[in-house]
C-alpha cells in the first residue's frame, strides 16, 4: 500500500471573525493549502471536511461552493475535538486504499463567544448539571487531572506551569489567537473555573480553519518531494471499557493505545520524536498526555514541566505553537492545525519557534465521548 505525503498545508490565524461564515473560513484555509502545494481545486479528487458545530449542514459542499464545485466526493466528518484529525485520517485511508492520488482535507470551526462546553443534558426531568456533579469540559478535565494528583501528588502549581509554557510559546507564533506572556502568579490568580483549572488554564474558543493537501507516493514523486512530509502513522481509537470511564471519562487508555499503535505503525519510539502538538484542552490534560504518549515514565510528568523539558529548546518540545490554551481551539480545525504546525517544523519553516533539526513530529487530539487520533509525521529525505 502507498505511503501518503502532505504536499501543502496552511491555516488561517485563529481569532474571532463574526463577519465571516464557516464555509468562508474553510475556503480561505483550503486556498492557502492549495497554493502551498502549487495545485488547484481541479487537481483534488476528494474533500474530507471536519466541522462539529454545523455537522449536519454540509460544510464541505459549501466550501466547494466557494472555491470550485468540481463534483468530487465530499465527506463531512465529526468526532468531537478529534474532528479535524479524523477528517485527515479518512483522506489518508482513501489514498491508502488506492482510490485517489490527491485529496484535500479541511478543518474549520466558528465558535463565536461560545462559553462553557459540555454539561448540556436535555430531555425530560430537571437539568442535572450542577446537581449531579458537573459534566462541563473544565470540570471533566479537572477531575482527570486530580486523578494524577491522587496518584503522584501533582500540584495546582505544576498544572499552572503548563499554561505559562504554552502562552510563552505562542508569542513566537504569528498564527496564534493570543500572544501574551502569562507569569505563574497570573495563571494561578486568574478566575477559577473548575479547580484546579483557572481561566488561563482553559483552551480558548476561537474561529479558525486549517487545511492540507495529501497525496499518494506516486503522485508526490511526480510532483516533487522537496517540501513533502511523510505520514508515517495515522491512528484512531475510541475509549475501551475501563472501570470508571462511563462516570469519569478516561482520556488515558485510548491515548496510550493510540500511541503504541502509532509507534508500531511508524517503526519509531517516543525517543525518536522531536516535537509534539498534543491536546492541551486544559492545562491538566497536558500533564496526563506526557505519560500517555510515552514522553516520560508514569509519575514523571510533574518533573518534566518543573525542569522545563517540554519548552522550546528542551528535551521534547510540546506545543510550541502555543497549543489549544493560547493558539486557540476551534474544535473541527485543531486536528488539522496540529498537522500544519508539525509539518512546518519538519520543513524547517517555523521561523522563531523552529525546533532545530526536527525530523519526526507527533500530533495528538482527544474528542470527548471518546476518540483519540495520533499522527506521526516525518521529514522526507
Amino acid at each position, binding site marked *: 500500500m502507498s505511503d501518503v505525503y502532505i504536499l501543502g498545508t496552511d491555516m488561517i490565524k485563529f481569532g474571532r471573525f463574526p463577519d465571516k461564515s464557516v464555509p468562508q473560513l474553510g475556503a480561505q484555509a483550503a486556498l492557502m493549502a492549495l497554493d502551498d502545494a502549487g495545485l488547484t481545486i481541479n487537481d483534488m479528487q476528494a474533500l474530507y471536511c471536519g466541522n462539529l458545530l454545523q455537522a449536519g449542514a454540509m460544510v464541505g459542499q459549501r466550501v466547494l461552493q466557494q472555491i470550485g464545485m468540481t463534483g468530487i466526493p465530499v465527506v463531512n466528518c465529526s468526532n468531537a475535538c478529534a474532528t479535524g484529525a479524523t477528517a485527515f485520517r479518512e483522506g489518508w485511508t482513501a489514498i491508502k486504499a488506492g482510490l485517489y492520488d490527491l485529496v484535500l482535507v479541511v478543518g474549520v470551526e466558528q465558535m463565536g463567544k461560545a462559553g462553557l462546553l459540555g454539561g448540556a443534558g436535555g430531555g425530560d*426531568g430537571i437539568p*442535572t448539571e450542577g446537581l449531579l456533579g458537573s459534566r462541563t469540559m473544565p470540570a471533566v478535565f479537572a477531575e482527570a487531572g486530580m486523578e494524577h494528583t491522587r496518584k503522584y501528588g501533582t500540584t495546582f502549581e505544576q498544572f499552572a506551569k503548563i499554561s505559562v509554557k504554552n502562552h510563552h510559546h505562542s508569542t513566537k507564533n504569528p498564527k496564534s489567537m493570543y500572544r501574551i506572556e502569562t507569569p505563574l502568579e497570573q495563571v494561578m490568580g486568574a478566575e477559577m473555573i473548575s479547580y484546579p483549572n483557572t481561566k488561563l488554564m482553559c483552551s480558548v474558543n476561537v474561529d479558525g480553519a486549517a487545511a492540507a493537501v495529501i497525496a499518494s507516493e506516486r503522485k508526490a514523486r511526480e510532483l516533487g518531494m522537496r517540501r513533502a512530509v511523510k505520514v508515517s502513522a495515522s491512528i484512531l481509537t475510541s475509549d475501551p471499557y475501563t472501570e470508571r470511564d462511563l462516570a469519569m471519562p478516561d482520556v488515558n487508555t485510548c491515548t496510550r493505545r493510540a500511541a503504541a499503535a502509532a509507534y508500531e505503525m511508524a517503526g519509531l519510539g517516543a525517543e525518536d520524536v522531536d516535537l509534539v502538538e498534543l491536546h492541551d484542552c486544559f492545562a491538566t490534560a497536558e500533564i496526563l498526555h506526557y505519560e500517555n504518549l510515552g514522553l516520560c515514565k508514569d509519575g514523571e510528568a510533574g518533573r518534566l514541566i518543573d525542569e522545563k523539558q517540554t519548552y522550546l529548546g528542551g528535551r521534547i518540545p510540546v506545543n510550541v505553537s502555543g497549543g489549544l490554551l493560547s493558539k486557540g481551539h476551534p474544535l473541527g480545525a485543531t486536528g488539522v492545525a496540529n498537522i500544519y504546525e508539525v509539518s512546518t517544523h519538519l520543513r524547517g519553516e517555523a521561523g522563531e519557534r523552529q525546533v532545530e533539526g526536527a525530523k519526526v513530529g507527533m500530533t495528538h487530539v482527544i474528542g470527548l465521548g471518546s476518540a483519540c487520533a495520533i499522527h506521526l509525521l516525518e521529514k522526507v529525505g
Partner: protein
Amino acid sequence: MPETATASGGTPLPVVSFLKIPETGSPYLEGLRCDECKAVFLDERTTCSSCGTRDKLSALRLSDKGSLYVFSIVYRSFPGVKVPYISAIVDLEGGGTVKGNLVGIDPDPAKLKLGMAVRTIYEIAPTKDRAGNEYLTYYFTPQEA
C-alpha cells in the same frame, strides 16, 4: 431520616433512572452488574459493554458508603446553578462509580482529602420540572461523625 415526601405529601420522581424510590423503605441507587465479568453499569441496557455478554445483567443495590476518588470545585456554571460546588467521583463499596455533588463540607481543596469516606444521602432537588413535579436526588457527604 431521608426526606422522600414532597412538600405536598406526594411521591417525588427520581432525578435519574438509577435512583430507586421503593413504596416502603429508603431510596437507594441501583446498578446492573454483569454476571460474567462483574462490571457495573448505571444505565438501562441488556448487554455488558465490557465483555459483550448479552442478557446476563442483574440488578445490584449499590452501597450508600464509598470513598471520594477525585473531585473538582466548580466556580463557573450555567445560570441558576449555585457556585462554588464540589463535583465528585465516588467509588461505592461493592461496586459502582457514581458522579455527584459532595455537600456538607467547605469547597476548599485544602479540606478535601482524596480517598475520604463518604456516604450517599437523598433529598428533594431544589428545582422542579416545567410541569411542577418535584424530584428526589442524591448527594454525597463526608462519613465522619
